[in-house]
């Protein structure tokens, strides 16, 4: 099907091979008033694919809040834009590259990073940070790994290794710091890893660029890498269908990345934009030339005519079909002011890049393609970009084993260890579990410092903090998402994703101002998956409203699953925060021996309501220690989350605390250990903690490892205690003074007996070694 002449008679069968339904094919015939030729069919098939058209999700995405005081540009452009003061805007977006990364981990991940970077600089912003949200299958054996086979583990290791190398390969060469993200390992991702890449850029507000073609007769200019046959149908076949046994054969559909070319393209684009000769610009991502041309024309209410003979080509004899559908990387399409195109060419030639006028803007609203002197395709641009099918897919709450399992669990809860038990062995096991273990083996393979703005880098804080050389302010950014919780309760899981990302951002002292989301789900043609999706949307909408973090853009990735086994529904949220004074940015590690350790809890009522016991079975501890995934995620109180966030921001701005770390995977005990580990000095020696909690009614495990939200650990010198207490009281945050930062053994006393005790250096070693041991020789 890949290459075909225009003489082929288009049958419904050929349309079906392109992933188009009979109804969609009929619609195409109606729009054109005739049968499409093969080129037109190909263009429709990619533009109307799930990946490009959002046909299953659009009706639901409308429910997300997209407006707010900071929002300059919401969803609909290449990336979201928010005002960060001083005449600057932050441009950011997250996007998935899941299927390519399974088929070819290195190139799939690399081009995922490349694609999201182009989305940022096509708007005139210079990328200043990348984060990656990664989900892999188990890389260590055991019950918590769903008893994965050795072959499965070996393959997961290869995938994780390839993805990490690919991300590093692209970002390191391009020159953008990869500053964070998260990595989670769960059995459900064995046959469908998730690779979501988020990029953040900065621009002056008045220098933003948009992808709206204007001006009849203006030249349409192709810049960047030449077009080859790679990636044809990446969007429609790879990203818009589930995997089967034959998925490995789709390797030719994965694109190949050239970060050096992208670096040149970045510099040339930003320099060309400064000439003032560029009217509109869009990158060629999914569906390449087809999407960039039709979307720019459609957004500007214009048409575009292109002569494909002039497209720079890497291979000979390419058909119109192949050129329009190629997903060769590192290419851009732009519209220049007629008469000033020379200025544009000069800049691109200076950087050694192709820049060729391949067409012009017209007023007839059509995408018209000429090839070998003949019209190869003529389609209303608006029909391609905006009139794709929109489905209200059937929705059904699952009556499946999933829900039964969680219900069954509630009848027979986890047997907690008797009071006074030594929990140290379980604690050590938890620290060594891949999801909780240190990610430094991964993050050290990324250049996290280039551009010298990284104030809080990987492993140093709850979110990455980037200073702005042009301003006193700094930006904090973090991604989060808990697939396990979203599987048990999609709505609650999605709300937690928003809350956790926002809380992490606030722990660095930043006020959350906007969000981006990447919605990773299974097959939308299954009513249960659509139920998960709509529930998650409603959860995100509610949480983003409450936390005042409007969604400015993002991406939906359906069809995540292989052989009918879907992944956990995994909404990933990226939250951006603003710090008024970069010098107030906080890390997560303890700072000084003798400082007090406080537990801030904005929802103390939840502690006494017995929730912890009921919610415990959905925790990382329950999974790792007992092999149980069930129950309900912790209840969420968005008002409490908002209070905690505001409280943390004020504590940081007033320099009342010196570190802050939220409670998440592994609960209080793991969070305390991380505060110690993150304090490591140059010689690797780290501070420790002596913590005592008494008169607690809940079992020790529930208190120490429960994962209820709206809580954070902060440390401060005793002299600041009164000031911190006053601020916390303003926001109804309870303050529990639980211990002291010390040097020596890490110790948690619970109701008078020792619950956890270990040398901090040996605990850190367990936590540090897991990933290297599993992945070093992958």
């Amino acid at each position, binding site marked *: 099907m890949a290459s075909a002449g225009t003489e082929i008679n288009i049958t419904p069968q050929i349309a079906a091979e392109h992933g188009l339904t009979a109804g969609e094919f009929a619609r195409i015939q109606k729009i054109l008033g005739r049968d499409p030729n093969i080129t037109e069919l190909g263009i429709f098939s990619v533009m109307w694919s799930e990946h490009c058209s959002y046909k299953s999700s659009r009706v639901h995405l409308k429910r997300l809040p997209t407006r707010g005081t900071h929002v300059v540009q919401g969803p609909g452009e290449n990336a979201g834009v928010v005002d960060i003061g001083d005449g600057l805007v932050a441009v950011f977006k997250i996007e998935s590259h899941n299927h390519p990364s399974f088929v070819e981990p290195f190139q799939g991940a690399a081009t995922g990073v490349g694609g999201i970077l182009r989305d940022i600089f096509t708007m005139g912003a210079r990328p200043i940070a990348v984060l990656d949200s990664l989900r892999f299958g188990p890389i260590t054996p055991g019950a918590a790994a769903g008893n994965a086979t050795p072959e499965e583990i070996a393959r997961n290791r290869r995938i994780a290794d390839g993805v990490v190398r690919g991300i590093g390969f692209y970002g390191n060469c*391009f*020159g953008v710091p990869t500053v964070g993200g998260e990595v989670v390992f769960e059995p459900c991702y064995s046959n469908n890893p998730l690779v979501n890449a988020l990029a953040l850029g900065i621009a002056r507000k008045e220098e933003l660029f948009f992808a709206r073609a204007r001006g009849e007769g203006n030249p349409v200019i192709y810049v960047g890498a030449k077009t080859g046959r790679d990636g044809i149908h990446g969007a429609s076949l790879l990203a818009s269908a589930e995997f089967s046994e034959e998925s490995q054969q789709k390797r030719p559909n994965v694109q190949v990345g050239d970060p*050096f070319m992208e670096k040149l393209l970045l510099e040339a684009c930003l320099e060309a934009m400064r000439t003032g000769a560029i009217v509109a610009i869009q990158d060629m991502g999914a569906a390449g030339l087809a999407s960039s041309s039709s979307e720019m024309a459609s957004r500007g209410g214009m048409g575009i005519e292109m002569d494909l003979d002039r497209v720079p080509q890497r291979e000979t004899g390419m058909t119109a079909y192949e050129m329009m559908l190629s997903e060769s990387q590192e290419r851009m399409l732009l519209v220049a002011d007629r008469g000033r195109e020379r200025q544009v060419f000069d800049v691109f030639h200076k950087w*050694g890049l192709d820049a060729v006028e391949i067409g012009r803007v017209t007023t007839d609203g059509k995408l018209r393609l000429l090839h070998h002197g003949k019209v190869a395709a003529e389609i209303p641009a608006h029909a391609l970009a905006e009139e794709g099918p929109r489905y209200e897919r059937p929705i059904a709450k699952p009556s499946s084993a999933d829900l039964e399992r969680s219900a069954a669990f509630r009848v027979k809860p986890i047997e907690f260890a008797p009071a006074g038990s030594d929990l140290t062995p379980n604690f050590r096991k938890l620290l060594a579990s891949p999801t909780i273990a240190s990610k430094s083996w991964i993050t050290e*393979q990324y*250049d996290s*410092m*280039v551009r*010298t703005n990284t104030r809080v880098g990987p492993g140093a804080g709850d979110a990455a903090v980037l200073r702005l*050389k042009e301003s006193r302010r700094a930006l904090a950014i973090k991604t989060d998402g808990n697939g396990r919780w979203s599987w048990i309760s999609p709505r609650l899981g999605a709300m937690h994703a928003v809350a956790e990302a926002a809380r992490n951002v606030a722990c660095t002292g930043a006020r959350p101002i906007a969000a981006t989301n990447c919605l990773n789900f299974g097959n939308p043609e299954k009513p249960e998956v659509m139920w998960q999706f709509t529930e998650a949307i409603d959860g995100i909408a509610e949480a983003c409203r409450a936390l005042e973090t409007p969604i400015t853009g993002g991406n939906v990735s359906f069809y995540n699953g292989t052989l009918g086994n879907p992944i956990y529904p995994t909404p990933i949220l990226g939250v951006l925060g603003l710090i008024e004074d970069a010098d107030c940015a906080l890390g997560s590690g303890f700072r000084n021996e003798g400082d007090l350790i406080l537990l801030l809890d904005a929802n103390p009522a939840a502690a006494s309501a017995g929730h912890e016991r009921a919610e415990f079975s959905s925790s990382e501890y329950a999974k790792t220690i007992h092999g149980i995934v069930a129950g309900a995620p912790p209840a969420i109180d968005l008002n409490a989350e908002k209070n905690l966030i505001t409280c943390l921001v004020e504590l940081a701005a007033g320099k009342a605390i010196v570190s802050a770390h939220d409670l998440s995977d592994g609960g209080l005990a793991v969070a305390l250990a991380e505060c110690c580990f993150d304090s490591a000095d140059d010689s690797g020696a780290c501070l420790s903690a002596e913590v005592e909690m008494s008169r607690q009614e809940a079992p020790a495990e529930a208190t120490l490892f429960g994962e209820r939200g709206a809580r954070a650990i902060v440390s401060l010198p005793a002299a600041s205690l009164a000031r911190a207490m006053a601020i916390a009281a303003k926001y109804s945050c309870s303050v529990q003074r639980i211990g002291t930062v010390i040097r020596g053994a890490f110790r948690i006393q619970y109701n008078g007996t020792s619950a956890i005790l270990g040398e901090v250096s040996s605990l850190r070693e367990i936590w540090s070694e897991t990933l290297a041991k599993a992945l070093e020789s992958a």
Partner: protein
Amino acid sequence: MKFGVVQFPGSNCDDDAYHAVGSVIGQPVDFIWHQSENLSGYDAILVPGGFSYGDYLRTGAIARFSPVMRSLDRFAKSGGLVLGICNGFQILLEAGLLPGAMLRNQGLRFLCRQVHIRVENTDTPFTCAARPGQILKVPIAHMEGNYFCDPETLAALERNQQILFRYARPDGSIAPDDRESNPNGSLAAIAGICNRERNVAGLMPHPERAAESALSSADGLVILRSMAESLARREPARVSA
């Protein structure tokens, strides 16, 4: 006194070097395009980090043939100060301005982390502001930083005190076989060297990333300050190239 920062296609630490010289130590600085054949008017040239020409073949292998390298060679021969950082060091090695070569890191992976280096010789324009044996905390970020040379070259480097920096433990001890302190496996834990004439130097760690304490270390500044101080002593005898 004037600094120049070379820009090759694919340089990506050029802005950082420019910022450290211009904004942090406050010296005049220009970018120099890779096709420039004229370096007159400059006193010190920084060859910054990055992936010149993509470095797909071998680090620095293409960059050494660019026009600016011909003028850099003349500039160096007439006594101008040249400092290569990371990819800049690799390029100076390829160009023969410094002896030796870079192998892939021992672990065959890209490594970005803070390391410690010990100043081995303070009698050079790149280290004159440092204390003998001073320990600097400066980050590395590279895939090919495993310095290597033949025994004769190593002996000559030692004899002529051309080794400027070695990877060290935080306490200053040197352990070439210790992956923790010498993470890329460099021969004799060499992190930076200079030529016999002491006016061309290269190092793998990034002093321009350790120029502000807000970014976790300002130890790298001593290298840039050394250059500025030694140039200040030289003036007004400006090099011509």
